[in-house]
């Protein structure tokens, strides 16, 4: 077989779940040595399609052929053996095993009946080198960063002689550097090893950079499927959401007034150092830095989940006592965490309960929850930030990522916060929902709320913020107003610590005080 030959064909695939026609006649052809991007909003049917391809679900209709022969995978193992491997969005790393065993999970090299440890570690070294990962195969996977773990998952597919690797949002937890490496790896796999890749991502620029062929799925049907060269990004978005999207970032100017949050010389030993900034009413301040630079940790310290060694947090003229999230909430700080599922939401309970979780005390009389008031409060935000769900009683786990994020935001809005901190608000969310989240943030700022947005995407920062603060290795390396003249490269350099720019900083004299305090 040679590059470009079609070897996997899916014809008219149908998959029905109780009450939903998840796939309604999807057809795709996969060619060797090509990157095939699969685009669509959350809930469009991409995940189901992958699960049909990898043997997790059995199809209810249509034909699935590899090399012209119809296949009916009953398990992931059969799919893997047939050369179809998948890197799932949810990490399936075994965190207590070492890197080598994670790479060769379920597929350890054997010498007779005995595991060949020598080959295991040698081959692992090779794969790590190929992935440009400077780690030992003896490292315990749980000690690696999320990005490194993601790379291990990709490496896993390489150990299986895969002909097709499906990557579901592989870059959602990768740093930029890791993303670059991944792209390089993908290009090598495709060009040198003649592998096929199905690439699924919400990041359209990635899709445009990588893909040879793009298929858009919406509501379980293919909408359009053609070569990348025939697509424009706008056309792609239009096909995905079913309507043109004029402006992804709808930042409307808001009136910026008094200082709401003031952070002075905040330090936590070994994590972040001497962080000072101000956020004013109506202002959206972006925090940008590499994963692990300390952005989230600063926010956690301000909110009181983590402790800090020195410095102070002043909210609306009042100094906050550190280490007490309950007090912070009471005083008006809202914090939408980075990992929705881990920290922000209880998936097995309803939208209603999730939304009113922090507000429960105010909605109760003498320890008894006022159900009517609770319902009224939740309904208000269901409408105002348009959470798409049949009712407030829907379990949060059944919502799409975008709607889950809205529930998190609503949860905090119920508290009428003076300051809202949102950490990676759009991670793993489709384009349509992203745009909605941005417009919610913009509205809130217009109402006079002070907002902090933590993000790893420069475009997002530039699109929604009035000001950006860059953090590198726990130190503040820049504070710049977002102006048309500000370049992406400049922000990135500051975030790397190679440049500094405090042009938007209001009070430079603060620097001197540090030494006295320290």
């Amino acid at each position: 077989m040679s590059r470009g030959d079609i070897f996997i064909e899916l014809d008219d695939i149908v998959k029905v779940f109780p009450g939903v026609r998840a796939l309604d006649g999807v057809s795709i052809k996969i060619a060797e040595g090509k990157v095939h991007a699969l685009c669509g909003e959350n809930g469009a049917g991409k995940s189901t399609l992958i699960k049909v391809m990898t043997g997790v679900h059995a199809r209810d209709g249509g034909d699935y052929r590899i090399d012209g022969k119809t296949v009916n995978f009953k398990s992931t193992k059969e799919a893997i053996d047939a050369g179809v491997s998948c890197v799932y969005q949810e990490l399936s790393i075994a965190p207590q095993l070492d890197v080598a065993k994670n790479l060769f999970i379920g597929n350890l090299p054997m010498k007779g009946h005995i595991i060949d440890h020598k080959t295991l570690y040698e081959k692992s070294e090779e794969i790590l080198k190929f992935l440009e990962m400077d780690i030992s195969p003896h490292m315990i996977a749980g000690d690696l960063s999320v990005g490194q773990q993601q790379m291990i998952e990709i490496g896993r597919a390489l150990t299986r002689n895969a002909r097709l690797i499906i990557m579901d949002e592989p870059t959602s937890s990768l740093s930029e550097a890791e993303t670059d490496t991944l792209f390089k790896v993908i290009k090598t796999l495709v060009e040198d090893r003649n592998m096929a890749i199905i690439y699924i991502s919400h990041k359209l620029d990635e899709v445009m950079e990588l893909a040879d062929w793009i298929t858009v799925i919406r509501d379980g049907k293919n909408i359009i499927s053609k070569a990348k060269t025939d697509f424009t990004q706008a056309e792609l978005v239009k096909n995905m959401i079913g309507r043109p999207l004029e402006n992804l970032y709808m930042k409307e100017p808001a009136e910026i007034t008094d200082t709401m949050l003031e952070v002075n010389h905040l330090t936590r030993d070994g994590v972040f150092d001497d962080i000072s900034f101000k956020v004013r009413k109506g202002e959206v301040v972006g925090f940008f830095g590499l994963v692990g630079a300390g952005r989230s940790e600063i926010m956690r310290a301000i909110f009181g989940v983590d402790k800090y060694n020195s410095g102070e947090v002043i909210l609306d003229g009042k100094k906050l006592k550190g280490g007490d999230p309950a007090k912070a909430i009471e005083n008006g700080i809202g914090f939408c965490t980075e990992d929705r599922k881990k920290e922000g939401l209880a998936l097995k309970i309803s939208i209603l309960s999730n939304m009113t979780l922090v507000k429960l005390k105010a909605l109760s009389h003498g320890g008894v929850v006022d159900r009517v008031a609770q319902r009224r409060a939740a309904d208000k935000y269901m409408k105002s930030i348009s959470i798409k769900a049949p009712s407030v009683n829907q379990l949060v786990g059944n919502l799409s990522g975008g709607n889950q994020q809205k529930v998190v935001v609503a949860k905090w809005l119920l508290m009428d916060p003076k300051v809202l901190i949102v950490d990676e608000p759009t991670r793993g969310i489709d384009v349509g929902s992203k745009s909605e989240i941005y417009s919610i943030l913009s509205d809130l700022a217009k109402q006079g709320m002070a907002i902090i947005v933590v993000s790893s995407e420069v475009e997002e920062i530039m699109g929604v913020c009035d000001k950006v603060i860059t953090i590198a290795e726990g130190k503040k390396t820049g504070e710049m107003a977002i102006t048309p003249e500000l370049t992406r490269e400049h922000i990135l350099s500051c975030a790397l610590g190679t440049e500094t720019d405090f042009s938007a900083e209001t009070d430079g004299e603060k620097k001197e005080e540090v030494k006295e305090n320290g």
Partner: protein
Amino acid sequence: MEEKGVKKEAAAAENAVDLKKIQRVRFLKDNNSILILVALLFVAFIGVDGFTGSWYNVALYSAEYGICCLGLALVMICGNIDLSVGYNAAFCGVMFVITFNHIYNSTGNSALGIIVGLIVALITGGVLGAFNGVIITKVGVSPLIATIATNYIYEGLVMNFAKTSFAPVNKDAITPIAKYQIFGLRWLTPMVIIFLLFVLGTYLWMHYTRYGNRLHIVGDNPEAAEYAGISVSKTAFTTFVLCGIMAGMTGFMMVAFSGAAIYTQGTTLGTFPISCVIIGGVKMTGGKGTAVHVLLGVLIMRTVSTMMSTMFWSTNRVNLVTGLLLIAVLIADRFTSTKSADE
């Protein structure tokens, strides 16, 4: 593009330093039981009068109870738990005595009695273990609840078959397995060697065979295991059966050591194996630990116990100290999380 290269190098350099450190901390953390054991032995030999004369008990009692701890460890590495090990072992001991007596009385051949009795004990253990396995992996009952229940059942079986404790008719043929001093060394008896062989065998099985390797994966991330084509329920079931078989071996050892199947040995074992396994460094949540850790855990627990009875401390205080030690280990484990700073 230029700044990306710079960034990557910086990140890589920083990573390398960090990872080395993590690896070191990780090694200490995962093997802290050896430090505990060394510290304990140091204190015992230096500070406890008479320990030099009685430490061989550590070896003997470790061997007596150690094998079922190994079995339990397999179950726990897979992320489950088995609280019925004690009475499983006790019942296997009873079955051994019944079989041995029957054969000895009819043939007068004690070697045959031992062999058949041992086989019956192991099969009994395996069957009881399989019963646990079916309830937990096939029916889907929580292992905690299921094995609490089966522990009651097995206790009932013991009481039913052994209204009183009972001894093998010709126990002089059996006790040498526990008592015969090889090379005249008090601590080296066939029982100790059998235990060490079990430790070695289990270690090698988990290290070198594909099946043995599955336990860690299944315990660590069952979903990942399923995606990799490893049947979680089959693997878990296997560990329950193995645990039962090892409990059977312990039942035999207990008869050989005390010269009788004793009804309360099930209670004696009770939570002891779990403590050993945890203190040795196997994680309650699964995915972590080797046979060597179990060996260390058993030695630690026995050292504490022997040390204290050498000082004529009674059970209540031994329990108190053991409990504190266990808590200390768990606290230490909690605070030495090696997860990198971004968590």
